[in-house]
């Protein structure tokens, strides 16, 4: 906030010089001069951008690298996804860059607290995976249900708050990170092959199953389960009718009172502890949580299922109040984000980068083969922090990028009946 105010104190000589230099720098940066330390790097050093978002991509390594490559300071704040939504809408002056998921953007963007980004200022726009532009990974793939990123990825004009039905030159978020989620299992304790979402309801796992207690994500997992059991046929899982919500929650309540679930988890570490301690042998899980269980030397598998994955995606958006040199810095940051270093970093954590081509140049052939092509690792696979994640010969659960992201059944979503769904979800937790 203070940063923003300081720069709006009228047009004195200093700010005039600053903006003048910035404009010149931008002109230079846009084509003539490539490489990062551009002319205006002197001014940009004083800039601080405040980014906030969920924990997954708020990485200190990224902030350090930004300081090194771009010269300005990036302050990061990590919150849980509900708190992120709330802060994005109610305190728009408290951040410059919002690192949010697409379903959160569906709630936040219509509130008019963010500004869309000009596609023509993005150097790597054409490198962004088509999943975020047209919704299709390959021209022949089917569009998944739920809040698919491309449906909330664009608006019609610079000050529009309504989403456009097809790609325009104004983007709401630039995609940064995404993944396909499935169930995590303890292969040593389940004692059978797990092939379907329905397996979590197997009486053999009574008192040994768990699902996530974040309504907008948990309801999707529940829908995948109900659909594969054949108990409910959905029109669109990502946008249920009241009757479908009633049925889904009714199903969950019955399973809960029958004692199917051991616990419900809300945070990353809870899910890791449940699995590592053997309290639970099959549950909804996030990919780094699976890696965390494995790093304790405990077998844990991110089991691909025949119905497909529940996917999620996040991106960076700009606060409405950003202008002048801060806005330029933000664009510089976005371009840097897509230029490959961060992409490679995220790929190495088991997520996917939005511009795979640029990330490839920052990864070794072996890393690329393991994470993206589903090949057996030739050497040990090392996490960004230097810890060995997988021994040589390991193959990624679910295989190649196309196999995983191509089998997405639905995206995390916000429904029209959101409020009703949340109320029913509370009933499930209370029952």
């Amino acid at each position, binding site marked *: 906030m203070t940063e923003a105010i300081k720069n709006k104190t009228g047009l004195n000589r200093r700010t005039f010089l600053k903006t003048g230099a910035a404009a010149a720098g931008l002109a230079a940066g846009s084509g003539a001069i490539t490489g990062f330390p551009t002319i205006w790097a002197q001014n940009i050093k004083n800039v601080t951008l405040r980014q906030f978002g969920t924990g997954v991509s708020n990485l200190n390594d990224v902030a350090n690298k930004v300081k090194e490559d771009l010269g300005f300071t990036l302050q990061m704040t990590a919150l849980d996804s509900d708190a992120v*939504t709330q802060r994005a809408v109610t305190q728009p002056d408290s951040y410059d860059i919002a690192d949010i998921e697409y379903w959160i953007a569906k709630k936040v963007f219509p509130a008019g607290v963010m500004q869309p980004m000009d596609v023509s200022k993005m150097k790597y726009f054409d490198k962004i995976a088509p999943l975020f532009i047209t919704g299709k990974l390959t021209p022949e793939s089917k569009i998944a249900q739920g809040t698919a990123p491309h449906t909330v990825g664009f608006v019609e004009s610079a000050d529009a708050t309504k989403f456009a039905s097809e790609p325009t030159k104004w983007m709401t978020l630039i995609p940064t990170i995404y993944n396909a989620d499935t169930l995590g299992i303890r292969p040593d304790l389940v004692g059978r092959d797990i092939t379907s979402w329905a397996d979590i309801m197997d009486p053999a796992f009574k008192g040994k199953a768990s699902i996530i207690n974040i309504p907008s994500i948990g309801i999707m997992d529940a829908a995948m389960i109900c659909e594969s059991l054949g108990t409910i046929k959905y029109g669109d899982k990502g946008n249920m009718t009241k009757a479908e919500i009633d049925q889904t929650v009714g199903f969950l309540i019955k399973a809960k009172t029958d004692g199917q679930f051991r616990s419900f988890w809300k945070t990353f570490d809870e899910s890791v502890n449940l699995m590592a301690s053997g309290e639970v042998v099959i549950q909804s899980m996030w990919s780094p949580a699976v890696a965390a269980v494995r790093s304790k030397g405990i077998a844990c598998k991110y089991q691909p299922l025949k119905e497909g994955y529940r996917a999620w995606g996040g991106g960076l958006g700009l606060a409405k109040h950003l202008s002048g040199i801060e806005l330029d810095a933000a664009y510089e940051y976005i371009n840097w984000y897509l230029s490959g270093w961060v992409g490679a970093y995220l790929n190495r954590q088991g997520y996917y980068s939005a511009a795979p081509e640029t990330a490839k140049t920052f990864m070794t052939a072996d890393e690329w083969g393991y994470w993206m092509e589903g090949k057996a690792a030739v050497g040990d696979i090392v996490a960004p922090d230097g810890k060995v994640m997988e021994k040589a010969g390991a193959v990624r659960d679910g295989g190649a990028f196309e196999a995983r992201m191509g089998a997405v059944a639905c995206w995390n979503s*916000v429904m029209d009946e959101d409020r009703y769904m949340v109320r029913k979800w509370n009933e499930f937790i209370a029952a």
Partner: protein
Amino acid sequence: MTASTAGHAALNKVSKPMRPPRKIWRWSNLPLVSYLQAMPLALILGLFLLLPILTIGMVSFWDYDSVRIYPDFVTFNYTETLGSWVTWKIYLNTFKFTLIVWLLTLFIGFWVAYFLAFHIRSVTMQMVLFLVCTVPFLTSNIIRMISWVPFLGRNGLINSSLIELGIVPKPIEFLLFSEFAVVLAMVHLYTLFMVTPIFNTLMRIDRSLIEAARDAGASGFQILTNVIIPLAKPGIAIGSIFVVTLVMGDFITVRFMSGGQSASVGLMMANQISLLQYPAAAANAVILLIVVLLIVAAILRVVDIRKEL
């Protein structure tokens, strides 16, 4: 929290400024002065207690959607809350926890205090042992609660020892993520709130009363029921107010120890707040406040806590 402040308010009534018997001119005779004297407390209570409660009351009538709240005057936050079976079930559940935890903490707390007050002879030793009781409070209550988890789990300390000793063939499941775990953790967390006030009142009991009762031929049990317990009532009441308000408002113990399997009013509010449904949570808070104030009023009606203070 609010209920305990109500308790304070009741205590404050006692110290009304007394007028001196003869009319001598003093600063304190001016009506303005007494107002000024009451001002700091009134300001603090007004700003930090009354104003927030009024705000909560106001917001409980507002409208909301999935991200924002809108100033309005609607009553559906109350009708939705009171009209739902979930609310009633959760209140019932919360009362159940409160009753069980209250009975257990009262029983344990009373006997710990009794032991400290009557069986330990030297005052130094009494104080040392009392301080020992407070040692766990040097750590955060979340840590104290979480530390039960590795202890009670399926492969936790208790289960693995029981299995190794051959007492049970397979792990006992109800130890963790159950109502048992919630009650256990709450009793552990809140018993000291019972011990302290009861110990305090027991220490004030004139020992000659007990000797007199003994001389008059009372048995140990009669002394307990006719002398000690009646005189300990204010301490029991204060301890009960602490425990009842803490348990009624608790959400984190219920969430962690039941693993989301069980609900309490506080947890219901926490869920609503995390989903940005502030008006609904505010309506819930107002209802809870009224319920807790009623319970505290009932306790104060049974026991006159001013008598002993």
